[in-house]
């Protein structure tokens, strides 16, 4: 699925400040269509901030971000177009508690893509089957387990038929026994050719499906490479130390 001519995401020298605090210090990254990228690094290193700049949940202040040929600028129309092409899955699920599972999933296709209800519901049921919980369609999010909620969140993001999926620590709020059910869905998605940027410390997932990994520290990319390269022979001392910490505890 790799098409090395035209990257689907281009980030050039991206900087972000929170007040005086320099949270992103010149991030460069190009992602090809169909690539699975894993981003990891210590807490506060700017991983969330970085993937949230890609769909403008955070505004970057210097550098360029180009998603699917659209430049991210102050133009609201561009921002909305990019958001339609990117799905996002959050650590805290962020499902809409006042809507049923089915309504959570059909909302954006109906209001943003202007699909009719029948089409949106058909798509929603197809996705719920794909993530393994079609029988929960009529329930409210509060009635589901964490793992089920996160799978609904994935289905909800996929319902817009995005070209890119962003995941911000999708399993860190889950009890251990539910992590696998969510990772399985993500692995299946990765193998189906979806372009994915995943912030995670699940190294099993990275080993199984990541094409490249990026190690973030203090707002910079310290090192990147294939999982093989990084696990076997990290070049930087900081990467080595961090990997040994998360792999042996």
């Amino acid at each position, binding site marked *: 699925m790799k098409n090395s001519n035209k990257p689907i995401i281009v980030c050039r020298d991206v900087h972000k400040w929170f007040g005086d605090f320099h949270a992103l210090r010149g991030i460069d990254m190009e992602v090809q269509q169909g690539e699975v990228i894993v981003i990891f690094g210590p807490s506060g290193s700017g991983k969330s901030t970085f993937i949230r700049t890609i769909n403008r949940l955070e505004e970057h202040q210097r550098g360029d971000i180009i998603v699917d040929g659209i430049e991210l600028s102050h133009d609201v129309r561009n921002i909305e177009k990019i*958001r339609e092409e990117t799905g*996002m899955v959050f650590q805290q699920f962020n499902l809409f508690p006042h809507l049923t599972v089915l309504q959570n999933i059909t909302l954006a296709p109906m209001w943003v893509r202007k699909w009719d209800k029948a089409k949106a519901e058909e798509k929603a049921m197809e996705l719920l089957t794909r993530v393994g919980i079609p029988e929960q369609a009529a329930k409210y999010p509060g009635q589901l387990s964490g793992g089920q909620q996160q799978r609904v969140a994935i289905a909800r993001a996929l319902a817009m038929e995005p070209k890119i999926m962003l995941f911000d620590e999708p399993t860190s709020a889950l009890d251990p026994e539910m992590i696998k059910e969510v990772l399985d869905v993500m692995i299946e998605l990765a193998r189906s050719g979806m372009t994915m940027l995943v912030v995670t410390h699940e190294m099993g997932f990275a080993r199984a499906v990541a094409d490249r990994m990026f190690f973030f520290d203090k707002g910079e990319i310290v090192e990147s490479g294939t999982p093989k390269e990084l696990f076997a022979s990290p070049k930087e001392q900081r990467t080595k130390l961090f990997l040994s910490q998360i792999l042996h505890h």
Partner: protein
Amino acid sequence: MAAVTDIKPPLSERPSPLGWARKYLFNSLGNSLLTIFSIWLIYTVGIGLLRWVFTQAEWQVIATNLRLILLGQYPIAQVWRIWLSLLLLAFLIGNSLAIWGKAGKTAKRFGAGLVAFPLLLALTAIGAESRGWLVGLSAMLILGWYLGRPATRTLRRVVAVGWFIWPPIFLILLRGTTPAEGVLPIVGTNLWGGLLLTFLLTVVGIVFSFPLGVFLALGRRSELRIVRWFSIGYIELIRGVPLISILFMAQLMLPLFLPAGITIDRVIRAMVGITLFSAAYLAENVRGGLQAIPKGQFEAAHAMGLNGLQTMSLIVLPQALRLVIPILVGQFIALFKDTALVAIVGLLDIVGIAKTVLAQPDFLGLQREVYAFVSLLYWVFSYAMSYVAQRLEISLGVGQR
């Protein structure tokens, strides 16, 4: 389950009257004294009150002026128009209970209470004609209930539309359209009074201050500086002055903003004042609800491409408003009682009518009877509102997620 509940508590735990009293009334020396003191207090006040109600009070003043207290000087010959509107309303309520109450137990019990209420009133000392209308109200409730039971989709739509067109129909019937000789002669607002006027002021206040308050709450959070400053300025200004001064200003200053030759009548001026006042408080309450919505909800909505308006109307407001329903109900009940202040600017709401009744030579010195009855009226409707709201909150699952 049955087997478990069938086991009776141990003998020592079974409440005997004496045991109950010891546990809940006399469980320590201090509490026993408190209990005895409370009983004494309730007894003295209660006896005094009962003696007054049944042997001393002259209730004739209420019976004579009942129509005035309920409707003001609305012409007797036209009162059928109000009854007709009420019949329609009863029909709609019966319909809605059957449809949205899913003909369940709560809806049935509630409906039965509503049917019984007019019948009970019909038993009191009122004219034969009113009695007929009251029985009609109960009949319409029952009719509406039976016709609403199929609860089909079309029926739902029709009833929903019915709720929207009822208020204008009511207002048209109330005010009339033709000159004096026609079928619906115009009845000027100067003749609207009593409970009728109190209700109108309340309902208009609620219906118009709700959207206005929501806009102000959103405006206060807007990124457009002008909109935010305006909203903050408005809210803080209004909340800093008493309603009575706003009512006076509405009476005296509103005409200054209108082109010469156009006058709006006093009732509408009062409605404007009440609406503007209520909107500021509503905005603050709604803002509380908005603040309780986690940032993640906005982010999830934006991330999937919803624009600002869609995010607000589909995701944030429905959750925020549901959170503040109990507070808003409290605010609306307070508004109902606050409308009594219009009596001071000369309108003849319940309190205004009470004052005119007491000014008549026949009824001098009967303040106690009149104001006791007025208070009772306010209490009955306030309590009914809060009771209905509680039931509604339970069935809507307010406060649960």
